[in-house]
């Protein structure tokens, strides 16, 4: 069903600034009328073919004064992004000239679009579902190649397709339950095995999707990584090495880094917010003490902590303090200065640092670069929680994850209702709750779909 939105909207669709081109997009029932009023080309705008750019001029109809030379492309409904008649005016991308074209559109039948309104219309007109609409935003804002891949996958409807499969199983089951309730003379009750089978199949698929949620979130939002350790173990050097840039000031003076230093980078497609912190130690220096306080806060907020220890100097109380500060966090231990004669062996860590897990230490030398690629791999693997196949469907949106969690919970309840021998009505309610949660992701409605399914699948009625 195409929703008829009565008004026509217009906006500048390219970034504001001086660019190669500037595009004004007009969508709605009057889009072609607007274009016709402003466009002077070989033929009147409304007679131009769809999806083919035509050269011409935009003029101010009041004075017939030319405003810009443009390419006009018409997209006839429903074959456009919004599903409505759409005109795209590509002009020379100056700030003033593009704004002038937009003003003319607005004074000749369009109104200014709200942010996201073109996508909203695409959703309302059924061109994309809600998950796809959200993916549009994610695509635009993608922070890395991998994040973009996840968003594009969602935009192409891969997540929606997977959810539709689950939803379809649930709708089938619900239709059967509801049909036997509303038409007891016509439809037999489903047998318990069938009911449980359908619930379990749906539950399994939802769980598989939920398993991708952590990786999906990491790709979409990235993770915060904080570098910790006592002063002068090479934290800032590690930061610079990861950034491949001398961003942090590195000296031999302990306590050089006094405030947080935050940088963004992508590592294997994962956006990282990397924070170098002040060395953790007790100090009389007021400024450094504030820095240590901030460092501790940043460590608490981080998704992953890189604890740096110096292999070439004996472990001491400050190392133990640093370890105590970051204990319990998701952690990678970097044993730096591995190119110098070691002052201790990795096994000593277990003795000196209470509860230290030996396997998590990795030797590096920031002066030679040794161990750095391994460290980067480990950061990536730890961020993703391990074992994620690329090019799959990811649940990357927090809203989707919450909906899937709730759906799984409802299905668990449905399962308990069935096995507890409770009546079918109650099973139906739980399954419906699950289907509704799933439908929240794509923005569909359940009740009407179930009713349609009942009449398609079952021969009911007097």
């Amino acid at each position, binding site marked *: 069903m195409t929703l008829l939105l009565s008004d026509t909207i217009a906006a500048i669709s390219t970034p504001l600034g001086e660019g190669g081109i500037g595009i004004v997009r007009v969508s709605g029932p009057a889009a072609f009328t607007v274009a016709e009023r402003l466009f002077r080309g070989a033929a009147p705008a409304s007679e131009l073919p769809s999806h083919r750019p035509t050269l011409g001029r935009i003029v101010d109809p009041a004075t017939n004064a030319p405003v810009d030379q443009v390419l006009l492309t018409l997209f006839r409904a429903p074959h456009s992004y919004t599903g409505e008649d759409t005109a795209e005016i590509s002009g020379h991308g100056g700030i003033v000239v593009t704004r002038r074209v937009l003003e003319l559109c607005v004074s000749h039948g369009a109104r200014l679009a709200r942010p996201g309104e073109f996508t909203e219309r695409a959703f309302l007109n059924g061109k994309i579902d809600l998950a796809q609409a959200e993916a549009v935003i994610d695509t635009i804002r993608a922070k890395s190649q991998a994040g973009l891949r996840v968003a594009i996958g969602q935009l192409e409807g891969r997540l929606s397709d997977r959810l539709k499969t689950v939803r379809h199983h649930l709708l089938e089951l619900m239709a059967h339950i509801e049909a036997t309730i509303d038409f*007891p003379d016509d439809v037999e009750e489903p047998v318990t095995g069938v009911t449980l089978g359908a619930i379990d199949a749906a539950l399994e698929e939802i769980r598989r999707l939920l398993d991708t949620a952590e990786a999906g979130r990491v790709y979409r939002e990235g993770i915060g990584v904080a570098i910790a350790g006592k002063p002068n173990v090479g934290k800032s050097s590690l930061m610079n090495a990861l950034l491949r840039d001398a961003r942090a000031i590195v000296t031999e003076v302990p306590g050089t880094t006094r405030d947080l230093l935050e940088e963004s980078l992508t590592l294997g497609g994962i956006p990282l917010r990397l924070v170098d912190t002040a060395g953790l130690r007790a100090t009389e220096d007021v400024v450094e003490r504030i820095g240590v306080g901030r460092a501790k806060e940043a460590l608490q907020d981080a998704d992953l902590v890189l604890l740096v220890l110096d292999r070439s100097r004996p472990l001491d109380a400050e190392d133990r303090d640093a370890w105590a500060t970051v204990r319990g966090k998701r952690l990678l231990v970097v044993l730096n200065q591995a190119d110098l004669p070691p002052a201790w062996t990795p096994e000593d860590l277990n003795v000196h640092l209470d509860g230290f897990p030996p396997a998590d230490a990795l030797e590096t030398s920031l002066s030679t670069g040794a161990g750095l690629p391994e460290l980067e791999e480990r950061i990536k693997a730890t961020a993703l929680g391990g074992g994620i196949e690329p090019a799959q469907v990811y649940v990357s949106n927090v809203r989707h994850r919450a909906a899937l969690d709730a759906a799984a919970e409802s299905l668990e309840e449905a399962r308990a209702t069935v096995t507890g021998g409770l*009546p*079918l*009505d*109650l099973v139906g309610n739980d399954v419906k709750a699950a289907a509704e949660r799933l439908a929240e992701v794509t923005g569909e409605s359940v009740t009407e779909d179930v009713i349609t399914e009942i009449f398609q699948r079952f021969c009911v009625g007097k």
Partner: protein
Amino acid sequence: MTIPITSYSKSYDVIMVGAGHAGVEAALAAARMGCRTLLLTMNLDTIAHMPCNCSIGGPAKGHVVREIDAMGGEMGRAIDATLTHIRMLNTSKGPAVQALRAQADKNLYHLYMKHAVERQDRLDVKQSAVAALLVEDSRIFGIQTKSGIQYLGACVVMTTGTFLRGLTHMGEVQQSAGRAGEAPSVEASQSLENLGIRLGRLKTGTTARIDKKTVDFSKVETQESEPDVPPFSFLNDRVETPRPLLPAWLTHTNDETHQIIRGNLGRSAMYGGRIQGVGPRYCPSIEDKVVRFPEKDRHSVFLEQEGWDTVEMYVQGMSTSLPEEVQIAFLRTLPGLEEVEVMRPGYAVEYDFVPPDQLLPTLETKAVKGLYFAGQINGTSGYEEAAGQGIVAGINAALRIQDREPLVLSRSQSYIGVMIDDLVTKGVDDPYRLLTSRAEHRLLLRQDNADERLTPVGREIGLVDDARWELFHVKQELMKTEAHRLRQQIVRPTAEVQRLLSEMGADPMAKPLSLAELLRRSNLDYSLLSPLDPERPDLPAHVEEQVEIEIKYEGYIKRQE
């Protein structure tokens, strides 16, 4: 020819046009609320007529009957007084979807309702056909009949059913008729269009009626009534009928039936392309069933007697618009009907309806103040759906007259609220039937608690009289006391108790439990627990039922609140 126009000497507050199931509830509600009310019908002998099957109730529909009754409406009492067959459906499928369904004696039901409106104070009942609505400045002030009389009234409720430009179809034969043999109303459709009200087109159908004397009952299954079920009305204690309850009978179609139907599809009014209206999905014609479900080798067919004093039987499941001789031919392929005589053939009817997105949730039109629509004219089907809208439209017309706040029932409060909300917000694509699956608060909208949900509403409005109010309070008080007792009374795991539990097939108790906790176990119920509950008071069945449901399913009910 011009008819002289006269204005009737008496003026009314509310005028009902149509005396079907919506019209009578609307008229009774308005008159009982104190309005001077006029009920106009094209035929006094078809008041509350049942032109399709004589069944009232079923899932969601039975719930609506209880809701109408709880607010002080008539339908529940009418069906209790005139039923010939009754059953409780879905007893094992859960407390919220159990539903009563009864067969009425068609003629007695009509007479009961006719007399109910006749004896109602402040209500005049007249036979007359309406030609035009009288409207000035988007406000209605009365109607004009075909005979030229103007009746003045500040509110008008239109409940014209399938009569607006009604057109019946049987095979190749078409007739302008609201129902078989009854004149349609063409003027009223025009009058609505003149007011800028948009009309749509729907269709529905009915089955043949057959002669009971020509049925071989040795070849059909018998489905007995269940005399022990509770009645529809909260005012009645038990089902009491003047004569013994009747059974229903079940037979099936077969391959031969389907072949005859397939071979004559071109002669079906619908498949022949002569019908434009959209038919109901839940009540497909037998042509539809055979075409859409070719894999089904048989379809159930129920035979229902239309009353004690008639041999006419309704053939449920065989709605059709095929020519009469084809109907006879396929009916005679059914076991038991080999020699059957058809008394009236089935037919389809197309009619105008008012797409209900033009209505407010009070059922008043957005276009004309004081003009209300209820029933099939709004694109619904079913007597119960019509009556549910009728009572709401009647109440709101009366509230407008009295200058009071209108009544809008919510989706969490009633099936009537679900229906009206669906109608006015989503509109209608095919004839709308209530289903329990349309309600998102199904566990709250049970037939047992309809009084709790709506009797206080009816009282506030002025429809619930003192007798019903008193009865309601007694029931609530008994329930409260019993629920409290079940929660407080502790059963100790004595050897005797464990033995009783094991006899019931229940697990033994590990520690003392309240009766309420025991009741929540899936394999125990209120009646099974009675040996463990020596102090149990003697309570009416409907009190026991509701207390049991509310305790046993408490967790599930809370989840839907």
